[in-house]
């Protein structure tokens, strides 16, 4: 497949991203550069100066909603990508509605209880939709321990599954970026496996 064929193939898919922080913003940028046609992004936060240490935002965007800023940044990467941005807090109730029609969903929350909530919701309310989770991305070094582990066809986890964010292990651009790009790569890999016949159904 030529790279134009790959982009053409990827352009027909819709991918959900839950959270637009370190994992979500970097993953969205990688998917936009890869040519994934539609990105559904949801976050309720505003950009703070500290976010710039790892998130895909710029100094002049501090104070702006992450959803608005990310949509803007994706348009600068590739104006053909359709971005559906929702500024609200994701819950068990709105997740199936917001991400309805998505071929794959990327979990990009910061908090462990939110990660648990979306896994339980997607697995029970949206059966068959693969969810790519990030877990264990804090600190620095030992990047070989960050991997993508397939639990089954509907659940993948990117990260080391052991390093939790703390004073000694802050979130930093390199490891967060590695995991976010690993999530994006898993999305591309799964979408490339879907044949073009998929669209004629």
């Amino acid at each position, binding site marked *: 497949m030529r790279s134009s064929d790959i982009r053409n193939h990827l352009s027909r898919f819709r991918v959900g991203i839950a959270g637009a922080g*370190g994992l*979500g913003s970097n993953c969205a940028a990688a998917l936009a550069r890869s040519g994934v046609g539609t990105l559904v992004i949801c976050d309720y936060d505003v950009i703070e100066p500290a976010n710039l240490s790892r998130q895909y935002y710029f100094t002049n965007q501090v104070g702006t909603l992450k959803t608005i800023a990310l949509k803007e940044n994706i348009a600068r990467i590739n104006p053909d990508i359709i971005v559906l941005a929702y500024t609200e807090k994701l819950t068990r109730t709105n997740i199936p509605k917001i991400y309805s029609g998505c071929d794959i969903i990327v979990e990009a929350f910061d908090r462990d209880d939110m990660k648990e909530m979306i896994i339980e919701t997607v697995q029970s309310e949206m059966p068959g939709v693969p969810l790519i989770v990030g877990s264990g991305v804090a600190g620095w070094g030992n990047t070989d321990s960050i991997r993508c582990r397939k639990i*089954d066809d509907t659940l993948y986890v990117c990260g080391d599954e052991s390093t939790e964010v703390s004073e000694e292990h802050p*979130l930093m651009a390199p490891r967060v970026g590695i*995991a976010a790009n690993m999530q994006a790569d898993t999305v591309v890999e799964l979408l490339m496996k879907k044949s073009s016949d998929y669209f004629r159904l």
Partner: protein
Amino acid sequence: MKIILNNREEMLPGETLTVSEMLLLKKFSFKMRIIKINGVLVPKDKYDSTLIKEGDNVQMLYLMSGG
């Protein structure tokens, strides 16, 4: 009984164990996790009542804050 735990064979005592008993036995104390048995997610409030049996495929995923 023999089960598959995160893609590895494990011998556990008895013919069945609840998820809670298995966690205690294996000294898995970390709280934030997802457990799937034969591809089906077990909600946290069902850990005491869900049984693990011979041949089951148990997958555990740890959830770490940060992202």
